């Protein structure tokens, strides 16, 4: 073992044992970020903060929540909301946070697509990000069941029912997932376990992995420019802070993020205190009743687009039932974003608006997702069903044509403006 000198300060004492000085350099003061970025690059830090808020508020809820079909509803709506001091605040933060986290995830994701931040070495960043998206989806879905309201019950019923469409094993699979023939106590207790233990653990792991995957390729920048990070670092450390193309994570990058966070939190707390019903559906304040189907069943807003991709296929085509077609489209929608790095055949890393064809594709895709989201909520009757079908079909066509469009784009101009 190495000789230990008597430490002259507390910092030195810790440094001897944990190497904190070097650790801070590697993680913070000499972790380099490009300078030409805008506030869209603050979304990752916002997400980390939101996850922390969900974790902390969730732990408080966990102290009073009772995962039992006879007690869950009252433990949330009476004990937590009305008896426990500031229990309502934790619930509002948790429910609004769970909804808003998806808004930020979507902004983060579409920023990545817009700037092409998923290719040329950044594939693993994208994949680990999509993994987080899937884990958060599972977390949101399992959490929504816990208050055991009408929408908890019926959304769980409808979504688990979807798996019944899988050939051969479908029926057994539904029973396996629910732990019963219908959504019941066994379903609640297992989703409770997933929600408070397994998925949060996996999310923590995935966050670490996501951050690690950023280390080597570095984050992208507003122009999609590639430059020599080492040379720029040296410039910065030598004192040419203005001339260097990079900034350190701490304090320069974070000082901007903290400001963005401040502005975001004004908006966030406005929602938490004064405008929360978008995240806490009124219908969910009716206790779950397996005999009373609500007039309108819809998932949380962040699932609406994929729900509509599923629902859009309502008639038989070539002997395949609408239900099966919908299921196939739904499966497609859920994996296709993961494959974007390989669907985009153009080597160009540029913001979408500077790409001659991709820019149309990008804004069309956004518009289509908005239409899907809207019609995923509206009752699927009359013309709505056809709009849903059109938007769902457009979604498939858009993604299937992406390789062709980007291939043409890269041929059309090998260089670009």
């Amino acid at each position: 073992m190495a000789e230990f000198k008597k430490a002259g300060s507390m910092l030195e004492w810790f440094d001897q044992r944990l190497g904190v000085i070097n650790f801070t350099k590697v993680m913070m003061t000499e972790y380099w970020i490009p300078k030409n970025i805008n506030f869209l690059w603050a979304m990752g830090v916002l997400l980390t903060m939101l996850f922390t808020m969900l974790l902390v508020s969730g732990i408080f809820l966990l102290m009073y929540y009772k995962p039992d079909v006879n007690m869950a509803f009252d433990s949330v709506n009476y004990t937590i909301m009305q008896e426990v001091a500031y229990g309502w605040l934790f619930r509002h933060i948790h429910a609004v946070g769970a909804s808003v986290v998806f808004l930020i995830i979507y902004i983060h994701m579409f920023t990545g697509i817009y700037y092409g931040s998923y290719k040329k070495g950044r594939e693993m960043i994208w994949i680990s990000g999509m993994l987080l998206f899937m884990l958060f989806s599972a977390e949101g879905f399992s959490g929504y069941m816990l208050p055991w309201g009408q929408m908890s019950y019926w959304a769980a019923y409808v979504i688990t029912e979807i798996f019944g469409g899988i050939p051969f094993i479908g029926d057994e699979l539904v029973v396996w997932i629910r732990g019963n023939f219908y959504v019941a106590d066994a379903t609640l207790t297992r989703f409770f376990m997933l929600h408070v233990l397994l998925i949060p653990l996996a999310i923590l792991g995935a966050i670490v992995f996501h951050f690690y995957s950023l280390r080597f390729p570095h984050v992208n920048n507003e122009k999609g420019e590639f430059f020599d990070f080492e040379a720029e670092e040296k410039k910065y450390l030598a004192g040419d802070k203005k001339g260097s193309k990079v900034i350190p994570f701490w304090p320069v990058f974070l000082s901007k993020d903290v400001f963005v966070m401040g502005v975001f939190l004004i908006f966030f707390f406005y929602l938490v205190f004064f405008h929360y019903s978008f995240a806490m559906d009124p219908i969910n304040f009716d206790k779950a009743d397996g005999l009373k189907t609500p007039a309108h069943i819809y998932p949380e807003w962040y699932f609406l687009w994929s729900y509509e991709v599923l629902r859009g296929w309502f008639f038989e085509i070539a002997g395949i039932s609408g239900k099966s077609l919908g299921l196939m489209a739904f499966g497609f929608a859920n994996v296709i974003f993961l494959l974007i790095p390989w669907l985009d055949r153009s080597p160009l890393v540029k913001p979408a608006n500077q790409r001659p064809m991709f820019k149309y594709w990008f804004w069309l895709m956004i518009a289509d997702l908005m239409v899907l989201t809207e019609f995923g909520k509206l009752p699927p009757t009359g013309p709505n069903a056809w709009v849903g079908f059109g938007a769902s079909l457009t979604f498939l066509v858009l993604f299937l044509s992406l390789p062709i469009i980007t291939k043409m784009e890269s041929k059309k101009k090998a260089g670009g403006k």
Partner: protein
Amino acid sequence: MKEFKILAVIMALVGITYYGIEPYAHSVMHPEVAAADFSFNDLHNVDTKLVGNVENGKTLVEANCIACHAIDAAGHPAVMSNADAAASYGVVPPDLSHAGRIYDANYLANFIFDPVSAMHLQHKFSPDSGKTFPMPSYNWMAPQDIVDIVAYLKSVAVKVTDDKEGHKATFEAACGRCHNMKYAGFEATTPVDVIKAHMGATPPDLSQYIKSRGEHYLHSFINDPQILLHGTSMPRVGLNEKAQEDVIAYMEEIGDSKKAERNSLGIWVMGYMVIFAFLAYLWKRKIWEEVH
């Protein structure tokens, strides 16, 4: 500035989506309904312009009503236990101590004349349905007599304070024979299964209905349930505007008891965040001056 442009684009896209899935979708799923009618204009069997005579009303009530109804305020106790009354009538007849205060006078007179049509329950209690309503119609009485009864009920009506206690009294008088309010520890005077057998539907526990239905819905629903829930067994109870407001206020006091705390704390937290954001901006400016 470029960052503002980006922000504006995001806000526009999020705003449009929000508008579509919240206000707009709700307007499609829950279409607007006619405003509440607190004069109960559809009822005109009894001319309520007549001037009531309290003395005669007292005689008539004692002869006709107290066989079923308690009127605690006038010293008439219930003749049966709740359990027996529930078994005999299907619904426990309410204590009429508050009747003169909570019901609209026109409604009340017409209710005494013919309860079923006043409650809009013809679809449940008609000669063809084979079910008879437990309270008789007093359509054989002269309008003057009915108006006298109403005048008497008004004269004995208990006054209540305009606070949670008062709201509670109104709620229990108006809804308490059918609905539980679990979060206030209140159980309906009629047992749930008896009501279900009698009316064909279970009156829900109202503890969270201020949240699940909201004030707007309740305002219209209580005034005339058939408009929003066509064919329902929930009767039109005929509350006047003040009494209905008290009932809704009580539902909020029980179902959303932290509302005041939420609103006042909200302002402070937001104010704190504004200051935080401002200081963060100054700090950011200072740091970025060195690199720009």
